[in-house]
């Protein structure tokens, strides 16, 4: 079983990202479970959401403490929260930032820096990072196929909004695949 922990702020779509990643993983033929860290949702407050991936039925219900992967939607969280807590060697950390800094990630964790907010602004016209981060996650981990992610996004958003979110997602996917993130 592999586990993903998403760190974000209320309103950034962390829970939606977790749900859509799970939907895409399930479409790829594996078992997936997605759930939020059940807080009182306030805009701007730190939030977490989790996804588990497994070839077998997932019975575990606790939160994720030793993630294989993390996504950090908002790098300003890093000074207040140890987003890398519990990460294992071989893990992948995807960080959305326009100003990459030095991160105290555990040894053996691969860090991927991407300016997903900029991608969101350019492709969707809004400072939305989460769909680009989903694309980066697909490329960096191989847990989900891009085509499955595209289907999941089309299932959630309609018309032009789906198109622009898919474009943001694809751009990040290709950046990570091409090694430019």
């Amino acid at each position, binding site marked *: 079983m592999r586990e993903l922990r998403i760190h974000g702020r209320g309103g950034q779509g962390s829970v939606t990202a*977790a*749900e859509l990643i*799970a*939907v895409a993983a*399930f479409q790829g033929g594996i*078992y*997936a*479970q*997605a*759930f*939020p860290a*059940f807080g*009182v949702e306030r805009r701007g407050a730190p939030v977490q959401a989790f996804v588990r991936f497994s070839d077998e039925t*997932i*019975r*575990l*219900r*606790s*939160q994720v*403490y030793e993630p294989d992967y993390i996504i950090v939607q908002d790098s300003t969280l890093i000074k207040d929260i140890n987003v890398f807590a519990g990460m294992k060697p071989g893990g992948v950390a995807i960080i959305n930032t326009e100003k990459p800094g030095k991160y105290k990630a555990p040894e053996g964790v691969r860090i991927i820096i991407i300016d997903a907010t900029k991608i969101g602004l350019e492709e969707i016209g809004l400072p939305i990072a989460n769909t680009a981060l989903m694309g980066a996650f697909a490329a960096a981990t191989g847990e989900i196929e891009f085509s499955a992610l595209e289907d999941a996004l089309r299932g959630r958003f309609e018309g032009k909004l789906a198109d622009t979110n898919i474009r943001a997602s694809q751009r990040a996917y290709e950046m990570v695949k091409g090694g430019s993130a």
Partner: protein
Amino acid sequence: MKEILEGSHAIAESVRLCRPQVIPAYPITPQTHIVEALAEMVADCRLKAEYICVESEFSALSACIGASAAGSRTYSATTSQGLALMFEVCFNVAGMRLPIVMSIANRALSAPLSIWNDQQDSIALRDSGWIQLYAEDNQEALDLHILAYRICEDHEILLPAFVCFDGFILSHTYEPVEMPTQEEVDAYLPAFTPYQRLDTKDPISFGMYATPDYYMEFRYENQRALLRVKEALQKYGALFGEHFGRDYSALVEGYQLDDAEIAFVAMGSICGTTKDAIDEMRAEGRKVGLLKIRCFRPFPSDEIASALSHVKTVAVLDKNISLGSKGAIGLEIKDALYGSSIDVYDYIIGLGGRDIRKKDIKAIVDLAEKGSGDMFYGLREELL
């Protein structure tokens, strides 16, 4: 066909497949997504039902009484403070023998206010005469709604049921479920045929007062009907298996129990985490097992006594506390095993959403082995 969706939406779909005719409901976290989804289905004509927006949970269940007594298949959903507000009405529903099914997205009770999960809300209604079923995962949660209507509407039963599932932990989790088709549900669950109903052409009354000459017999009949649910659950749970391939004939279910020396007893989503912890402990050679309780009312004392007869120690996981006494499941287990030489220890755990990890389950085995129990587990001593 398997699909992945949020627990609340899986339950709403399952309720739709049961063809309820009247849905009086009031939203409350973490149950809201269920009634929102049902309201949308009614608005979109995917569900032909009367959806009644009420001003409180007291009104929701009161409206259910009228609808059910008039002969409609009736549904509602609530949790925590909402269920507490229904307290009086709950006893009336059971006393009037109305087969209403209600979803409970289990949540802690105030004060202090908590929107997070434990099972105090439905446990507090354990004496109300409702059947209480508890789900481990979203598949079981959606299945138990269909099963509940089949049991409740049997003329030998005619009682209401809570279908309980842990708030947020199941209600807000996306996971794959097998969703039955309408044809499959129709083949299993026939239309509701009321035993008697309100009818202006043939007027009767429900819930009239009973003098001391009559009251006790009504209560006795209530108790007898609730005890008959054990047999009905076995029958319709097996029938469910024939129709859908998932057998729910067992009121309690063992996991790695046959040769276990220490057995957990638990209810709801905590069973999943416990099973994973048991697998890890088994790999270390520790003889640990689980007895999962699916049906808390009626309480399957005989089935439990027989399932646990060979174990040395029982560790009960209670997501509730009968303040001034012990956890509600612990009390029942001690009663069921009275006279045996089995040590029974009760652990109050996971109140108000405190997360429960595999390491907690393992730590409880260590405590039980040392003979330390009947306690709150996982308290933050620095706050006391």
